[in-house]
């Protein structure tokens, strides 16, 4: 099989689109793990919830895409507050495994409810009119919406990185990660900070869900398919590393894209092969710090 340069360029671009989803999802996971030490398995379900809410708002209330870009993360953020306050709060002192099991249980519940209501074939959601066209780039036809996905998620990722790494609020967060008791002694409300961090992390997932709604069929299973890969991305990038998860997400999207051309059968496993290699060479991940 010969692959032309234009062919490679188009695969690179498509890889970036998928990578954008990985980046924004793994970023949320990294933020949550950083402060809460919880492996949030419910991330995929909340991603799906963001997409399904977008569909529901359009079909039942006539609320369009652009509003949902704001409203869906807000709604899922509130769900996040409830989850953290009512459930997660009780298990911080326990082993990581309990958080993983609890959030996995939540995932099964949420997905099960939507599966029994809507089935698995999915619900159609069209791209907003403004982005419905596509642009001929010479080497490929790129739907404008996909370009928007890359731009929007990069903006959100970078904004998140900026807030956490460069602002006073971010400094509190990072300090809270290192030593919560000491930060609390300085008069900062750490429990509130934790709640809001979780809400923010899952709101990112919902944002990705809204972005994904016109790209993949809105279905109760859409999160399940993605989340396992995203976990691998987080592991490769290094647990809790903000920039690490963004870069790894984008990079793995591109690698996966190329695999689809050179050896398509391996495209669903390539990320895990890389994960194994990275763990063998750098157990803390590419960008992670060994504790």
């Amino acid at each position, binding site marked *: 099989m010969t692959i*032309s340069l234009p*062919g490679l360029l*188009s*695969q690179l671009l*498509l*890889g970036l*689109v*998928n990578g954008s989803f990985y980046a924004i999802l793994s970023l949320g996971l990294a933020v949550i793990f950083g402060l809460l030490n919880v492996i949030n398995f419910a991330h995929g379900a909340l991603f799906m919830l963001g997409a399904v809410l977008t569909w529901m708002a359009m079909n039942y209330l006539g609320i369009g895409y652009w509003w949902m870009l704001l409203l869906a993360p807000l709604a899922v953020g509130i769900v996040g507050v409830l989850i953290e306050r009512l459930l997660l709060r009780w298990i911080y002192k326990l082993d990581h495994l309990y958080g993983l099991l609890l959030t996995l249980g939540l995932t099964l519940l949420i997905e099960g409810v939507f*599966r029994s209501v809507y*089935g*698995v*074939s*999915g*619900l*159609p959601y069209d*791209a907003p009119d403004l982005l419905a066209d*596509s642009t001929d780039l010479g080497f*490929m*036809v790129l*739907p404008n*919406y*996909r370009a928007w996905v890359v731009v929007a998620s990069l903006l959100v990722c970078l904004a998140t990185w900026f807030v956490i790494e460069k602002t006073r609020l971010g400094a509190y967060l990072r300090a809270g990660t290192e030593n919560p008791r000491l930060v609390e002694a300085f008069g900062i409300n750490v429990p509130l900070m934790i709640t809001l961090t979780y809400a923010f992390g899952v709101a990112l997932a919902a944002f990705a869900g809204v972005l994904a709604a016109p*790209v*993949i*069929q809105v*279905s109760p*299973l*859409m999160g399940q*398919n*993605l989340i396992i890969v995203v976990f691998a991305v987080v592991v490769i990038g290094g647990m809790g590393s903000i920039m690490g998860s963004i870069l790894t997400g984008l990079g793995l999207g591109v690698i996966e*894209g190329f695999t*689809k*051309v050179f050896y*398509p*059968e391996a*495209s*669903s496993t390539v990320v895990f092969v890389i994960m194994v290699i990275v763990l063998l060479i750098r157990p803390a991940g590419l960008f992670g710090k060994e504790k």
Partner: protein
Amino acid sequence: MKSKLTVLALVLGAAGLASHAAYAQVKIGFVTDMSSLYSDVEGKGGAVAIQMAIDDFGGKALGQPIELLTADHQNKPDIAATKAREWIDTQGVTMVFGGTNSGTALATAKVAQEKKRVYFNNGAGTSALTNEACSPYTVHYAYDTVALAKGTGSAIVDKGGKSWFFLTADYAFGQALQDDTTKVVLAKGGTVVGSVKHPLNASDFSSFLLQAQNSKAQILGMANAGGDTINTIKAAKEFGITKTMKLAGLLVFISDVHSLGLKNTEGLLLTTSWYWDLNDATRKFAARYFEKMKRMPGETQAADYSATMTYLRAVEAAKSTDADKVMAQLKSMKIDDFYAKGQIRPDGRYVHDMYLMQVKAPAESTKPWDYYKVVAKLNGDQVFTTKAESKCSFWK
């Protein structure tokens, strides 16, 4: 002493009778995809259809209540096979009813053959079930990849779609569908310029679709099903693939069309064994099913009902649940119901007519679920594997 022995003999005899009676009870074990990408194609709806048939039969066979067990195989052949084995060994299941996913079907059929139990399958496509991997205990009831290839494949080549590129689900079913369609395309003077395999339950098809487009083929043969077909069609439309290539949905279910909407599927040719709006009898079943499920039955679910009825009638006629006796009965009886009309061949293939359908344009659809128009009725004797083509070891 003698009287004590007599009592003991009586008790033992009664116990023997009881255990024999337990084996005579009809138990159907239905294992299919209940939760993943194929669960709308059959899933819970399939179990509901089977239960409807059991209830319509009177709930009893050979004087005992009929029992239905169900399980989710999660599209994993090992889970399907283990479940079938467990049911046969510990529950005394008399008929294993396999559902969607060819990989699981091949594994389960093998277990049923080894344990000498009747095995029915509707949802799985692979023609190997009654060909290379045929078993004296298998009945392949609804459709198979050969019928799909001969139906949709030849219709498209006849319309001028000579060069093909395949997008294939990377497991038993996708491979079988691609192979069977390739044979049809080549036999009719067409060419296959390339193919790409995608993992089952993939989420992004854009990359594969661009490869297809670069091949410059006229026809994109989608050798996949369910959620994979849905996402392929959606992405093909988005990336403008449909402007240069025509899509050939080799296995399209009504739940796929419902999910995508007519706007995205208009004009698509497909082959199916059954459609709810064919005649009064099909509409009557559809209305009953709709009441329970709030959606129209697809071909698989209608076939599930019909297959259960056929099996129960065979058990009653054979007056036994013994697999050899029931299979002999199944292969000798005539079947004629709202689903189809025909006979089960020695290789286990239920031969009946199929339909070549075209998806209606939005303007042509006058009521909910009014999606297909019949293009042609395909003769069952020609559309399935013929005796001359068959590689089944015991059908010579």
